[in-house]
């Protein structure tokens, strides 16, 4: 996030007094201008909007199979919990949620329902395919499982694992946050200087 900022002068007690006066409206004229200038952040509107969006993701309460148990552990367990990212509020109505975590195997009977849920969500919306079964079909290469959720809906982040550890899901959500901010990590392309080799579909 690009910010320009000037440092506030004085030690802590002086700064606190000045801030108190500013809030109470007791400063006038030049004093007021100087204090306000020292506390301003400058950035672009889109950046601020993305920052707000990434820190307040509302996941849709949606779980299909075993990965759902790990997802509930991420949301509900005190050890790895999603509240630290501001995403603890799971809304159960798709109109109120913006993150769909597809946790579990997608069977052919369930696929149109998931598509309908995704269509009901309002923009901006993101999808995390959690686990091997929703990214590709995992170990289920058969008649009853859709071979990957990206066959019928766009997916932003794939989290591998069967089921992925809660830490892996949190890493996936952090990657999604980077993507929302606009600079998704390039991963191995950075390390091997392979910019320009991405496939754009």
């Amino acid at each position, binding site marked *: 996030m690009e910010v320009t900022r000037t440092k506030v002068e004085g030690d802590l007690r002086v700064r606190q007094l000045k801030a108190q006066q500013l809030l109470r409206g007791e400063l006038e004229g030049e004093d007021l201008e100087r204090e306000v200038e020292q506390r301003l952040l400058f950035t672009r509107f889109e950046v601020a909007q993305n920052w707000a969006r990434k820190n307040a993701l509302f996941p849709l*309460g*949606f*779980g*299909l*199979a*075993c990965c*759902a*148990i*790990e997802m*509930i*552990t991420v949301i*509900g*367990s*005190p*050890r790895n919990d999603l509240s630290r990212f501001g995403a603890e509020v799971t809304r*159960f109505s798709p109109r109120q949620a913006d993150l769909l975590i597809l946790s*579990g*195997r997608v*069977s052919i*009977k*369930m696929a149109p*329902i998931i598509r309908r*849920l995704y269509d009901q969500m309002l923009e901006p919306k993101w999808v995390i395919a959690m686990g091997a079964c929703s990214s590709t079909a995992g*170990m*289920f*290469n*058969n*008649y*009853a*499982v859709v071979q990957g959720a990206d066959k019928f809906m766009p997916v932003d982040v794939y989290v591998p694992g*069967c*089921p992925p*550890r809660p830490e892996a899901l949190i890493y996936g959500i952090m990657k999604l946050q980077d993507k929302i901010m606009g600079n998704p990590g390039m991963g191995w392309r950075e390390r091997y200087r392979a910019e320009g080799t991405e496939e754009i579909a």
Partner: protein
Amino acid sequence: MTEALDVPYRERERSVTMQSIGEEHDELLTINIGPHHPATHGVLRLLTTLEGEIVRDVKPIIGYVHTGIEKSCEDQQYWKVIPFVERMDYLSYYFNAMAFCMAVERLLDEEVPERAQWLRVIHLELNRIASHLFWIATGSLDIGAITMLWWGCRDRDLALDLFEMSGGQRFHTRYFQVGGVVEDIPPGFEEMTRRFIKTMRVRIPQYLSLLDRNEIWLQRTKGTGIVPAEDLLAFGVTGPLLRAAGHPWDLRKATPYSGYENFDFNVPVGTVGDNYDRFRVRVDEMLESLKIIEQALDGLPEGPYITTNRKVALPPRHELATSMEALIHHFKLVTEGFRVPPGETYAAVESPRGELGCYVLADGSAKPARVHVRDPSFVNLQALPEMARGHLLADFITCIAMLDPILGGVDR
């Protein structure tokens, strides 16, 4: 009309009673508590026919997580079937693997060494505790006691740490193999398990003090969802539901398997068969499981942790350097797998939800010809219409929570 408006508003309100919409009112409303719903414990679709708020009929529609596991198993070698079967009832993964391994060991006529049996019992009971903890976490979330969600998930993490120590993964560890377990428990496992037992012995009474003396919880669970034991038996329901109704049937006591006859434990049985009894039976089962784990740790025998029959189990790594037969056995087992003589059998274990049975048909090759799992949730779901009839919608949600269906097992 103008005369009516002269009457003050409060008096007009009081004269409107609901008596005309009484018992004779026959308008039934069928709504769809759809596959995506916070309270259905997975993707279960319920076509509910309501009269006002009272449930008159429920039709469960399943199949939204059908993964064709049974068909996939026909294409895999026997030891590769174990991860597939584990993912059916995805909260009690060790029980699925146990039923399958018992069936295949019976077909092979294979004897499981005693240490392996006791290790299996320890892991099965730990999984029972983990499953009940998750049940109480999500069940209480449905009923409204949200604190139990945090407590249940927190303690479940402790049990999953133990699984990670022994099996390498929190979930779906492929720890049970045909003939025993895949690896011995590491040093430090016993101490951590004892610490876990001590912690749980303090925490389970805390859960009871939160829920059991809570007036709202008692009013919501006592007296709701009563089905008499004969009806449950007609529906084929087993497990804590049947025990809560007063019928003491537990496969660990009736047909002991894998060394359960060596342990001294009680089976909690309820009296009335309402949701409160189901809740208490499961919480008491957790305490009994702690007893079993403690006895198993105290008396764990020495010995091999997997059968020494090299035609079925992989030889230990150090033998591969010295013995040619071990190398050949290893090669055959890894590439082709062991062959099972033709036959069919059915083996059942007592999972946290009821009787989990596995039917295996072998045709002499290295891949099973048919694997079918009799899942307890599939059968228990048939009792749901009976449980819900005549109750309010809120009590219906309590019934589903106390029924503890796991849709992975229902749909397979």
